């Protein structure tokens, strides 16, 4: 694939560095269905990359492989130079707790927990004490302009508020990579835009890289560059660079 070249965009960490997360030649099939057929992908620290492509092209599968949720049938994923598939399941889980954050399309908040507790959950899973975790969670809710829903359960807040809570939850542990799979899929365009603004702003502030799976172009426009997945292969359009 085409090597990375700096975009026109402002101060990004130097591109001469090795990528933060890199996948080469990923293959993954579900039964007879090939979901990935030799996909390559790279992302550097602090970069926001949109993953686009038609439905069923393998975007989500790529994201799951990158995050170490799914083991690819072939190919490798390197995170900070370490190969993910060489790690045990427990180590990969630990990595996801400490270094990765996730935002999905819907149904991701624990319905019994309050929004505040939901945001605090990954922090607590990583071993932070409850008091500290909830304080940080409150700060993040504030930052995503949903401090008022802290005490409510997910069932009692709107979709847009819930999605912001989910973004707060993904960012609260200060991950190095945020994986977002159709984060605005269930939102109207105004709410979707606001959520994207808050997500990208917060990611830039904390220096987190974002892998943004979407088929909405206007959401992809929040990225620094895009990768198109077609038939299980990822391409970085040369003209965009």
């Amino acid at each position, binding site marked *: 694939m085409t090597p990375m070249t700096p975009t026109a965009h402002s101060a990004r960490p130097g591109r001469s560095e090795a990528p933060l997360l890199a996948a080469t030649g990923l293959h993954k099939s579900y039964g007879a269905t090939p979901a990935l057929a030799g996909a390559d992908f790279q992302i550097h620290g602090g970069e926001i990359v949109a993953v686009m492509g038609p439905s069923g092209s393998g975007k*989500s599968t790529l994201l*799951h492989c990158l*995050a170490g*949720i*799914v083991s690819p049938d072939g190919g490798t994923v390197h995170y900070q130079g370490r190969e993910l598939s060489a790690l045990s399941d*427990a180590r*990969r*889980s*630990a*990595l*996801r*707790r*400490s270094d*990765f954050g*996730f935002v*999905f*399309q*819907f*149904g*991701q908040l*624990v*319905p*019994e*927990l309050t929004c505040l*507790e939901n945001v605090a*959950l*990954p922090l*607590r*899973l*990583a071993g932070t004490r*409850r008091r500290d975790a909830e304080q940080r969670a409150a700060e993040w809710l504030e930052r995503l302009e949903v401090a008022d829903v802290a005490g409510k*359960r997910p069932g009692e807040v709107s979709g847009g508020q819930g999605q912001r809570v989910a973004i707060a939850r993904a960012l609260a542990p200060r991950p190095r990579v945020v*994986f977002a*799979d159709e984060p605005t899929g269930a939102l109207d365009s105004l709410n979707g835009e606001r959520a994207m603004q808050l997500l990208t702003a917060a990611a830039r502030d904390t220096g987190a890289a974002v892998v943004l799976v979407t088929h909405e172009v206007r959401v992809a426009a929040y990225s620094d560059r895009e990768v198109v997945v077609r038939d299980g292969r990822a391409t970085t359009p040369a003209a965009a660079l």
Partner: protein
Amino acid sequence: MTAAGGTLDHDVTTAPGGGPADGVPGAGDRLRGWARDLALGARFALTGREAIVRTLLSALGVGLGVAMLLLGTTVPGLVADRSQRGAARDLTYYGSALSPGPDTLLVGEGDTSWHGEDVYGRLLKPEGPAVKVVAGLTAYPAPGTMYVSPALQRVLASPQGYLLRDRLPYRIVGTISDAGLLGPSELAYYAGDGSLRLDGGNSSGDLYRTNSIGGHYVDRGMDPVLLLLSVVAFVVLLLPIAVFVATAARFGGERRDRRLAALRLIGADISGTHRTAAGESLVGGALGVLAGFLFFQVGRAVIGGIEIAGLSVFSHDVTPGPGMAALIALAVPVCSVVVTAMALRGVAIEPLGVVRRSAPVRRRLWWRLVPPVLGVVMLVPALQGGEGSSNSLLLPTGMILLLVGVSSLLPWLIEQVVARMGAGPVPIQLGSRRLQLSGGTAARAVSGVTVAVAGAIAIQTLFAGVTGVYTKNTGLDPQRVQAQLAHAVSGSGELDELTDRLRAADGVLGVTARATSTAAIPGAPGSSPSNWNQAQVDVGDCASLESVARISGCRPGSVYTVGVRAGTTLDLADPEGDGPRPKPRLWKVPAGAGPAVLIGNGGGTISDDPLVLATPQALPVDRINQPYAQLQLRLAANDPDAVERARNAAVSVDPTMDVTTIESSVTLHSFDALRRGVIVGATATMVLIGLSLAIGTIEQLRERRRLLAVLVAFGTRRSTLALSVLWQTALPMLLGLGLALGFGVGLGAILLRITRSPAGFDWTSVAELVGAGTAVALLATLVSMPALWRLMRPEGLRTE
């Protein structure tokens, strides 16, 4: 619109049921619609593996309930049949003395025991040709032959039965038919004995003349304590099943509600969806009734082979009244529909999903306290009246209410406890929060276990207390004496022979023998003998006297008294009783008679009368009136046949003699059977409920598939989620068990008071039951673990 002008429109629009204005559907249409709704529900109940499992589980629960109910309805008939049989073979004669005639029969009571089991035996000698044949026999056995019950025949034929064969040295000429037996496993024989002889007209307890064959059997009835125990056991086993049936009807409620919502979306009306739901639970109910009758048939066959409470029952006696059976077959499915209707009451099934109207209502305490308080109030009369009032309906009702109180209080308790939680580590937070939202479901599932454990603890407590009473009642120290024999003897010759033969028996380590009798203390000259005081007279060697009283310096020739002054003159020919007044046989208590203090109750036979203890050298046995032998035996501890040999020895002297063991009374055996029955029943119930708990958990997990996958993506450890599931199951279970412990012990204490038993708790049994409950919770969690593992996979991230 004026009232007059609008009548027609008015009537149409407000027609009952709000039927459409364009014609009310005919009754046939409506019926067909109903049938269609019900059939649709039935299809739901039977399509899909989960649905089938759920339906089968409901059916199993309902079936067990139905079987228990059917069994319950047979009890009155059972008791009646038994007493009828008892009456048909009763030989007791209650009139003034008979003289031999063509229709008289001499009866010797040959009852004995065989390794703890009663053997009903009668030695018979018809005195004329016109004696009616007793039920179960076709003819009276000729001297030296006997008829035996099938069970006794089996024992006699078995290799271990040789001792009993020696004891019953009669030739078997036939078997006693069922009409002459109380139960299929009853050991019984009728032997012809030509040597029976009744001197004069007087009958003794063991030998009497009768012409009343199959007459007035006075049913001793069940021991009231045993009856109480049975009632408790029945309630304890039945109630959790009732609770389970109620829970089973609500299985998979959320899924069902969603399915019904889908029905609404395609245009079904509310009552139609309710009918569909009813159809769904009706299938479980109906299958349950079928299963119930099946279980009952199986149970009936099994019951024919076992003994409960020392009683065995003929399978053909275990027959429910047809009316009752029909009632049960109808009422149980109706109940399952009613429970479903109740469950749906708080739910508005809207086309777009399900709205639960009654979700976050805070539970109130006061009405939950009503059943247990009412229960205690209903137990009060029994508490005051003692065991005699245990027959009244109040007692079981009170118990049921008290136990129902456990399940009515549990949801409230869980809510209270859980509301204060959620701060702990992540698994506990997750589990507690889940309970906060849907504690009711958990409580419902657990309440069955809770009721079972509470009831079982109560019954165990009662068993422990009652068992204590029954061993203490004999008043003998089983360490010192293991068996006894009490029987009338003709004189010192027979007493000595009896003593010698018993001493000679293998495994008998020692025998002490006394002969007891009563004597009169003549009052002022000319006074009526019937007003004279009585004294008991015991004659025996020093060792036997020392076994009943503390005396000092006993030598042959010594005499001791309690409440009789030395020098008093006694009339040994007890002048009381019927017949001509016997010639007085006076005997003077020697001046040197010492004082005695009775030990315990002195062997259980000594009354409050004044007492004279004499060695035979001071007062020969042959001088006392109608000597009654009291023998106490020490037996080799590890030889279960010792007592059987002693019995043989006694029977060889007189076939109506029997040796009874002291520490193992028959009643205790029956307690043990009941006790085990309760434990087995409670455990079975708990396993059943544990299964439903596991299914509920799995269902819940499956509904949360996506969430679980998201949590995995976040790097959540499996153990964290497993622990949260455990907590979610274990907390209600622990609270339930705690409540059960409190209520069980409380109810047990009340029952102990009712039976006037000393308080004594069988803590090992309690621990066993609580342990079983905990194990069920753990097991339910464990069973749901594979599902959790399977569901914690990234596939769940895919949107359905």
